[in-house]
């Protein structure tokens, strides 16, 4: 009953993966090292910075606070899956480009995944709601102002009101 190695079978960005891993492997490391998807970043490994945020079953979670076996049977979306297959950017990515919402880009994947889920739940989000929704993601470069502007623009575009 107790295993030293476990099989993880998961769908990531629509593609199925099956690997055998040590159960202590963090989902963030599984995604980066075992699957080669290095867009998900590791900042703190204790859940406070948000750089590792991914979507699991469409909900934002900290990849550093899940063990890889816990992804077995679940669907994951990472930053690599945000743009279309043909390279067409997601409206959030376009808005971040247009509003200069990133500098070094380290926090950006976590923020984009968080905001993707947030906007889906709050298509008419106000600036105050956006600021509060961003509070689980730390950025050391931008001072957040352009991130907020980018998300506001994305909300207006996705909502179709711009």
């Amino acid at each position, binding site marked *: 009953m107790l*295993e*030293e190695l476990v099989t993880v079978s998961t769908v990531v960005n629509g593609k199925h993966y099956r690997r055998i891993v040590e159960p202590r492997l963090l989902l963030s490391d599984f995604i980066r090292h075992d699957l080669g998807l290095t867009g998900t970043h590791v900042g703190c490994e204790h*859940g406070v910075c948000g750089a590792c945020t991914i979507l699991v079953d469409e909900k*934002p979670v*900290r990849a550093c606070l899940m063990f890889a076996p*816990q992804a077995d049977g679940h669907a994951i979306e990472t930053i690599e899956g945000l743009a279309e297959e043909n390279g067409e950017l997601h409206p959030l990515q376009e808005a971040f480009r247009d509003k200069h919402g990133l500098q070094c880009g380290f926090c950006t994947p976590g923020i984009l995944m*968080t905001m993707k889920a947030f906007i889906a739940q709050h298509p008419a989000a106000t600036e105050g709601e956006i600021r509060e929704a961003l509070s689980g993601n730390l950025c050391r470069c931008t001072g957040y102002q352009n991130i907020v502007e980018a998300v506001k623009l994305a909300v207006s575009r996705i909502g179709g009101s711009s």
Partner: protein
Amino acid sequence: MKPAPFRYAAPRSIEELLALKAEHGDDAKFLAGGQSLIPTMNFRLAQPAVLLDLNTLPDQNFIVETSSGGVRIGALVRHSDIETSETIARSHPLAHEAIRFVAHPQIRNRGTLCGNLAHADPASEMPAVMLALGGRFHARSAVSDRWIDASDFFLSIFTTALEENEMLCEVEMPPLPPGSGTCFLEVSRRPGDFAMMGVATVVSLDEAGRCAEARIAYCSAGETPLLAPGVVASLAGEEPDETALLNAARQAAEEIDPPGNVHLTSAYQKHLVAVLTGRALRTAFARANTNASQ
């Protein structure tokens, strides 16, 4: 830092889970949301030899109303499930109001209520909510099955009445008294930060508009969530006007003695106790007034 190696099981039944826990005792830890356990393992502050994953257990994510109007909440109910539960928004608005102060949405999507309560961080909101509600905690092991009152559950920092090999498998929020008003308030430096001070209160009015019942609990005020019976006594039978509220706030600041921490002094915490007590009671009584007239 990466966690130390462990052996892992994802049992398919509670009985199997509890049997494994009984077999391995203190060498084994339960893994539910993992939002408190995994950080400590990543720091290697905790190095359990065995991890027992609850997440594949069937039928543990229930939120059900009891025949008396209370609510039972299962071991795999995530904080985000409570946030979106219409049942809880209707029957226990105190829990609904408090849950958005728990960490951040990303944490709430994994962290479980039962896991949070069993972890018993003194700064956590939901232990104070359960204390204010007079909740009950269902503890099971391979050889025992018992219910523990909230007032007996939190013993010290990160320490509960759960005994070796016991698992917190569900909790029950009792029905609120008819015509109750509730309020949860918290001050933190930024949204999602640990509470500098938090208060949860349940009050009700009699027909003459005087305080009939009251319960008030604080988080981040000591080693456990704390009730304030002195505050309750000062309100009993009183009309909750500004004088009574001011009195209650003063009483709270005398009765609650927060230790202070690296973020703020005990004097400032005491100040917050007084201010939040007054505000929370004012709101809760106003809500009770509205509810009583419906």
